[in-house]
């Protein structure tokens, strides 16, 4: 039995195979409409979510399975003080696979140690978000036709941005990848990413504070939101929330085939005028998110490929 807790739980080959399956699903979704008939997905969301929870549920429904779960800690026994370990032991008796989102970092790993069913990390605090990474990789591959030989700029909240951490971890395994980390000093990527992932593997990267100085060399620009829920101090949030806003004016300096990604939701970090620019790929990510989650559920449940 396998779980997906960290993006590195999937090897490069397994990641590529999963993306291939997601592409095949995107071409003919109907071919996969019954492959998970009789299977149940539990969505354990201790933290608010729109896209991730709904795309997991849509993915399982598209595969012919069914879903159960809760969408906030208040509507679960967590509000009574139940541990993650006890909750997953119970859920293992009700479902065949589960996706868990939790504000505490490492909660999905904790769940996986007590689970009898595959556990998918659907986001843990400011730590990791491996299924968003699969979504991002599928989108990048569709836009650029490769996952290697790329310069990727990541902009905004790189400290608490779990999608950023997972994407860097996964992409760092591909050949000739360069990262440009664009953030205010207070929101720089944590050292377990810069030291343990990038420096240890000699991956070229630079940390800068201005998007204007670097946008011309980027193949991918990954924008993120400064997340209010990750700050203990509201003053810090207010001071930093508008650090980076992407506008069409800024986009003029970018390559004509640069792709702009964003895990969503956005607040104001991408101006609405950018939505109509052909380089905007963030709504493609939303659709791709369903396909990669369908592929992931099939892979972890080891159901027959159509």
């Amino acid at each position, binding site marked *: 039995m396998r779980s997906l807790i960290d993006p590195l739980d999937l090897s490069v080959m397994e990641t590529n195979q999963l993306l291939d399956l997601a592409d095949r699903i995107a071409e003919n979704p109907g071919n996969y409409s019954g492959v998970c008939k009789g299977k149940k997905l539990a969505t354990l969301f201790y933290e608010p979510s729109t896209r991730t929870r709904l795309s997991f549920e849509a993915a399982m429904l598209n595969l012919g399975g069914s879903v159960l779960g809760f969408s906030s800690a208040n509507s679960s026994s967590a509000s009574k003080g139940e541990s993650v370990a006890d909750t997953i032991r119970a859920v293992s008796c009700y479902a065949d696979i589960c996706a868990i989102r939790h504000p505490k970092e490492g909660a999905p790993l904790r769940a996986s140690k007590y689970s009898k069913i595959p556990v998918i990390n659907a986001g843990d605090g400011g730590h990791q978000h491996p299924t968003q990474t699969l979504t991002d990789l599928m989108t990048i591959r569709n836009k650029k036709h490769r996952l290697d030989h790329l310069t990727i700029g990541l902009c905004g909240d790189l400290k608490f941005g779990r999608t950023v951490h997972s994407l860097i971890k996964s992409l760092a395994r591909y050949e000739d990848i360069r990262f440009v980390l664009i953030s205010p000093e207070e929101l720089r990527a944590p050292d377990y990413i810069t030291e343990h992932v990038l420096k240890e593997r000699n991956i070229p990267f630079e940390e800068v504070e201005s998007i204007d100085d670097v946008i011309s060399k980027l193949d991918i620009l990954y924008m993120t939101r400064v997340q209010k829920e990750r700050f*203990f101090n509201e003053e810090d949030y207010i001071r930093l929330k508008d650090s980076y806003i992407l506008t069409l004016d800024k986009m003029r300096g970018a390559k004509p085939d640069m792709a702009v990604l964003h895990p969503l939701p956005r607040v104001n970090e991408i101006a609405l005028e950018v939505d109509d620019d052909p380089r905007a790929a963030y709504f493609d990510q939303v659709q791709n998110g369903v396909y990669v989650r369908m592929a992931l559920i099939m892979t972890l449940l080891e159901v027959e490929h159509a």
Partner: protein
Amino acid sequence: MLNIDSLNQGIVIDHIKAGSSMKIYDLLNLAQMDCCVAVIKNAKSSKYGKKDIIKIEGVIDIDLDILGFIDPNITVNLIDDGKIIKKTKLVLPHVLKNVIKCKNPRCITSIEEEIDQVFQLCDGRYRCTYCEQEYQE
């Protein structure tokens, strides 16, 4: 001058930084062991000026790996028949379990009951296995 008899059989943990012996006593769980233990504090040391020593008598099975994390200068001598039969060189243990605590308030270890505090050695640093944050003293 305090005299402690030499061991005929057992373990001598020597060159402990002065003042650290009781921490090691607790971490090795020596209070729970049914054997003779001598804790010597502030013994004279030509190398460090002062040092602590712990002598444990008998054949015992304890995990000494943890000592490498506390102080790599510690020396461990195994004694049999009154003679040193093995000097153990300490290395940093790959995993530390319930030795140190994660201080990241966003980590699951901050709220989950009965959870083991597990740290792994990565590139010379200990990181929490749950949140990956580096251990800070």
